[in-house]
């Protein structure tokens, strides 16, 4: 079997410009368009309705919900043809008979041809707390990764790895903003998993960079990174393939609830694999990592 010898390093500049461009667009999207927060983080109520009558269509449902005076109501198709998700922002706290009253009113309006499959109601205080703990969780995991990698590697490497992580998170969120996909609790879980996966991928290449720095005393870091990427390339491809196979299976067969979650993760795996090669490595070069960097650390 022959090892691949693709000149990845030739394209560092090109892809760095592309990444900067994507990050810039993501930032602009996040600032001007913002994220589509779900009820977990914004507060409000979500009802998954299944219609039992084929003739009941989305505009009927929208009209009946609009009549209920619930504030801003959105009705969307969800998964199967006859399933819908209704979301609205209820300003005051959740009343006891609130859902029951909606059911009664709806029955009056369109008849008993629907069922509520799922109800999620989150008060403003709880949603603020969930948002806070989500942000803390992501910040904390980034911090923990930074510390771990700092202990295991030299600081130049940790900077490279963390830059790659930020790159992945920002671009994934940028995609979510662009496509107006909902951000809920499971997306936070997905982002954290992306952080773990991207780190994992970067660490594999960095380990090899380090090993090769010790092995070849006369090769510059520019080429060392390329050798290392090539040497680990088949692993990178195989692992991202199997992970993507698993994620695609969740995305296609796992039901509507897991769609956003698995989509975020598919996106993250692709971006994470790319950033391990094209963000993490060029940073080692920019920071002038040499054979000495490794030796210094080892002497200490």
């Amino acid at each position, binding site marked *: 079997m022959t090892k691949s010898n693709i000149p990845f390093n030739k394209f560092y500049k090109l892809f760095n410009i592309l990444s900067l461009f994507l990050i810039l667009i993501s930032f602009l999207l996040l600032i001007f368009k913002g994220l589509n927060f779900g009820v977990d983080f914004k507060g409000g109520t979500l009802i998954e309705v299944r219609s039992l009558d084929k003739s009941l269509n989305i505009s009927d449902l929208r009209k009946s919900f609009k009549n209920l005076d619930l504030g801003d109501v959105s009705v969307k198709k969800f998964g199967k043809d006859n399933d819908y998700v209704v979301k609205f922002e209820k300003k005051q706290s959740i009343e006891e008979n609130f859902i029951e009253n909606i059911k009664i009113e709806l029955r009056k309006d369109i008849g008993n041809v629907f069922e509520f499959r799922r109800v999620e109601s989150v008060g403003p205080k709880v949603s603020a707390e969930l948002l806070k703990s989500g942000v803390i969780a992501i910040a904390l995991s980034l911090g923990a990764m930074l510390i771990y990698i700092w202990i295991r590697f030299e600081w130049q490497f940790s900077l490279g790895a963390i830059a790659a992580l930020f790159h992945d998170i920002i671009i994934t969120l940028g995609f979510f903003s662009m496509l107006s996909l909902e951000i809920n609790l499971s997306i936070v879980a997905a982002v954290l998993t992306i952080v773990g996966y991207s780190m994992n991928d970067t660490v594999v290449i960095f380990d090899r960079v380090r090993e090769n720095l010790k092995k070849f005393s006369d090769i510059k870091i520019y080429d060392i990174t390329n050798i290392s990427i090539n040497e680990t390339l088949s692993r990178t491809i195989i692992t991202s393939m199997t992970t993507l196979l698993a994620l695609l299976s969740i995305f296609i067969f796992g*039901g509507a609830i897991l769609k956003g979650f698995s989509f975020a993760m598919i996106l993250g795996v692709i971006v994470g694999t790319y950033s391990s090669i094209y963000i993490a490595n060029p940073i080692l070069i920019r920071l002038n990592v040499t054979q000495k960097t490794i030796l210094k650390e080892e002497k200490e």
Partner: protein
Amino acid sequence: MLYFSKLKIISVVIFTLLLSYFSLSNFTKIDDDFFKKNINLGLDLQGGSYLLLEIDNSPVLEQQIQNKLIQIKKFLKDKKIPYKNFNIIDDKKISFEINNEFIDSTSNLLKGKDSEINPYYDQFKTNQFELLVVGNRFELTYSRYGLIQLKSSSQNQAIEIVRRRVDEIGTNEPNILKRGNDRILVELPGLDNPDRIKSLLGKTANLTFRFVTQNEEESFGTERLSFLDGSDESIVSKRIILSGDNLIDAQPRMDSESNQTVVTFNLDRVGAKKFARATTTGVGKKLAIILDGQIISAPNIVEPIVGGAGQITGDFTFQSATDLALLLRSGALPAPMKIIEERTVGPDLGQDSINAGILSLIIGFTLVVLFMFVKYKIFGLIANITLISNLLLLLGVLTLFEATLTLPGIAGIILTVGMAVDANVLIYERIKEEIKNENNKILAFDSGYVKSRSTILDANITTLIAAIILFLLGSGPVKGFALTLGVGILSTLFSVYFIARLMTAQYVIKNKDKEKLI
């Protein structure tokens, strides 16, 4: 790295078989006496309701401050310390003034470990109230721990009442837990319509009997309250004849004379005496029955009620009478509660989620297994056997701890399937490199294992860190994801380094002379 002692082989095999047995016992009960544990299904999979209630402690706080004020007044009077200008500021501060010559002695009485009137909490090293003296003005404010103490005591009372109410309705295996010091979490598996429970939990159920009065200037004061159905208003005295505390039983009944649904009740001895006295002196008056500040009904007292039993009439349906009786039997909440978060999943959605989860697990698993076999042939087979035992180990551990499996948890398992092969891939790719420079196959395999080890550990620890943080900070279903992901990493490391390595070693030692081994 390829050598295994007999003892090690036996331990690995026993450990794997035992956990596999645990995981399989979820699907078929083999021997109930030996192992009874099961994986729990989360509410999102079995259907059910999750309610988070928050206690509004402000009325309790107000009440406690009032009581404290009266206590302090009495205390100062007993100590013969003259005081003036007692008042309560913003419902949270007691303030009063003392003549100059008593300032030191009074402040000594109100602070420190031995204060009779301001209890000292040894474990927090602080008093119930913080004392601030400005000139001759004293100010007492709840200390941080005084507040916590107050909140947790009302939480303890409330959780007891919530438990009673939920038990009375009779759902299966409810889960009622404290959250923080002013919240209560209620999980009701299998309940797809929580509306009745919600309306019962939201009621304080503070029942009082008070006279209706025309006379606005009564010594206890009066207030204007509306009827429950909103039809009318009435002026009632603030003097409480009887409260729900004196009730020992309440039941819904059909009154045979009027053909109306009523709630009958029995009073304890003290209550019966009070009730008899009030109804004797008050014949001809109207007695209002008030629940949470609204009048249920205000019947005329026709004759004294001395037996300690009575009935509440009102515009009841049988359901509402049953609910009122239930609320009265289980007692009043110390403070009002609000539902601040609700998540309800119907049972068929739960079943659909289970089906979708299992389908995607089977498909994801099959794809990964096929991919590995095509790519690595015999070693792919080893990786696949490892993957199966990995899944069994993962389920076994979850069973052992009776963990809760959620829909994102299933996603975590599928993701583990995808990422678990990574370790074996890293090892095999490394071996392929080593074999080029090393003629001795066994040595090549050995160094492949050794050289990839730190990379594998690094890579897995990073994911494990993410999983642990998510487990600690995540809530509900997301916690389930973190759990399966985290346990999945551990079971992966075990199966790669013990099961897969064992199989690889056996195979390589037998076939070391084969030309193209990997």
